[in-house]
């Protein structure tokens, strides 16, 4: 997330100077700051879960009835992520909501949408090359290959999910084994609860004068704001600390083939905790012509896998009966991205489609910049809402 994003999108007005202050200083101090921010992330997710439980009570499902249509869920995830420009933030919020009672089946399309929404960032980065024709063509295709891949993932897995609930079952099976069906408390991660609970209880008790619903809503809003700020700052800090390590990883992946590319994309994304940073990084590398589209493609796919770490981390904050569902949605995110890479990249015909799509679109966009603008506006905002309209019409 850029400084500009923080300035324009953050309701808390995290200023440039705040970011600069935070990202300066010795490395050990930055690590302490990161540890503090991770703690805040856990508190924030817990806050959303607790707040949603208070505000919605037993009516969480009814509250999200509008998103029970999978297309609507997909659109919510896409548009929210495109506006916030951070899939980690959106997936962490979704984990919190699931902890508060949002059904996993409603949350799954939202998570899929978050994957699509996050690709807007690297597309915007590619616009920086617009004045140089060939460079723009290469940069734009390197950015949109991620879009095409993520759309293909949705086209493949969303119908399967609607018909058979494969990801939900897979996530449910894995989370039950990890959390333990009886106690519903994370095996080996029980230390999280006593650490996270006090600030959540403090906030809850400080709102004793308000109604339960108001307290819940305030907790949700605080949690969302905290996640936004925390992920912004963590991203900034990790970028400054991990740039050297990221270079090493990329150097070691050069000339080693696609599996190494996927692995390095995954590791770099885990290190910087942001898939949009990783996918934006390849835009200038491909734009200059030094890396080909086929070479950056696996690295981009690795970003999809690496980004799942944040939701998994967020899920560790949840204890109690809903811990198993919070972990389930985080694991669904992981399985979805893993399966997407395995299925699409291992089938030659499917693997070629995002490359062909991105190359064709870039070719057209170089000749007509209005197509590039129309693509961004349509892909992330117009088409999603048209889809909602159509699906609502079809469902009567």
């Amino acid at each position, binding site marked *: 997330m*850029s*400084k*500009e*994003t923080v300035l*324009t999108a953050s309701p808390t007005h995290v200023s440039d100077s705040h970011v600069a202050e935070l990202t300066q200083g010795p490395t050990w101090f930055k690590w302490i700051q990161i540890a503090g921010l991770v703690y805040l992330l856990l508190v924030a997710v817990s806050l959303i879960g607790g707040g949603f439980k208070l505000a919605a009570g037993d009516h969480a499902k009814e509250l999200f009835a509008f998103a029970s249509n999978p297309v609507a869920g997909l659109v919510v995830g896409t548009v929210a992520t495109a506006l916030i420009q951070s899939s980690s933030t959106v997936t962490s919020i979704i984990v919190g909501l699931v902890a508060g009672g949002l059904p996993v089946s409603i949350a799954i399309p939202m998570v899929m949408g978050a994957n699509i929404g996050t690709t807007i*960032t690297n597309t*915007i*980065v*590619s*616009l*920086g090359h*617009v*004045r140089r024709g060939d460079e723009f063509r290469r940069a734009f295709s390197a950015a949109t290959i991620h879009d095409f891949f993520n759309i293909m993932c949705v086209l493949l897995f969303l119908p399967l999910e609607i018909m058979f609930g494969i990801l939900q079952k897979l996530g449910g099976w894995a989370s039950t084994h990890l959390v333990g069906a009886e106690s519903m408390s994370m095996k080996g991660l029980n230390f999280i609860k006593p650490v996270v609970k006090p600030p959540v209880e403090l906030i809850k008790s400080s709102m004793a004068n308000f109604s339960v619903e108001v307290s819940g809503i305030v907790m949700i809003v605080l949690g969302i704001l905290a996640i936004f700020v925390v992920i912004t700052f963590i991203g900034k800090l990790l*970028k400054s600390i991990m*740039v050297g390590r*990221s*270079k090493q990883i*990329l*150097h070691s992946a*050069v*000339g080693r083939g696609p599996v190494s590319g996927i692995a390095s994309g995954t590791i770099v994304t885990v290190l910087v905790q942001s898939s949009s*940073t990783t996918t*934006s*990084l390849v*835009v*200038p*590398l491909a734009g*200059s012509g*030094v*890396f080909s589209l086929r070479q950056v493609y696996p690295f981009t796919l690795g970003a999809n896998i690496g980004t799942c770490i944040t939701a998994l981390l967020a899920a560790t904050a949840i204890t109690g009966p809903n811990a198993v569902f919070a972990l389930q949605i985080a694991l669904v995110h992981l399985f979805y991205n893993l399966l997407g890479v395995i299925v699409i990249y291992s089938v030659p015909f499917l693997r070629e489609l995002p490359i062909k799509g991105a190359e064709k679109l870039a070719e057209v966009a170089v000749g*007509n*910049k*209005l197509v*590039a*603008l129309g693509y961004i506006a349509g892909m992330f905002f117009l088409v999603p809402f048209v889809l909602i309209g159509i699906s609502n019409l079809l469902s009567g």
Partner: protein
Amino acid sequence: MNVRRQELEQKIEEMEAALAKLKQQLNLAVEEEQHESIDHLDEHLEEMDHKWENIREFWPIVVKEFRERFGKK
């Protein structure tokens, strides 16, 4: 086997070996370029921080193109 044919086969082998060597050299040159580009990762990361400026730069180009295509002639 006549001498002419032997000579041609010999030449093809030599050219193929030379081509393989050139391809290997090209791969090394490309990889060297890639390593150099990775060394500038910090600058590429900074580029991300200016993405809204990219839109500012992109917008007048789109407007100009729109006028050229749909404006009164």
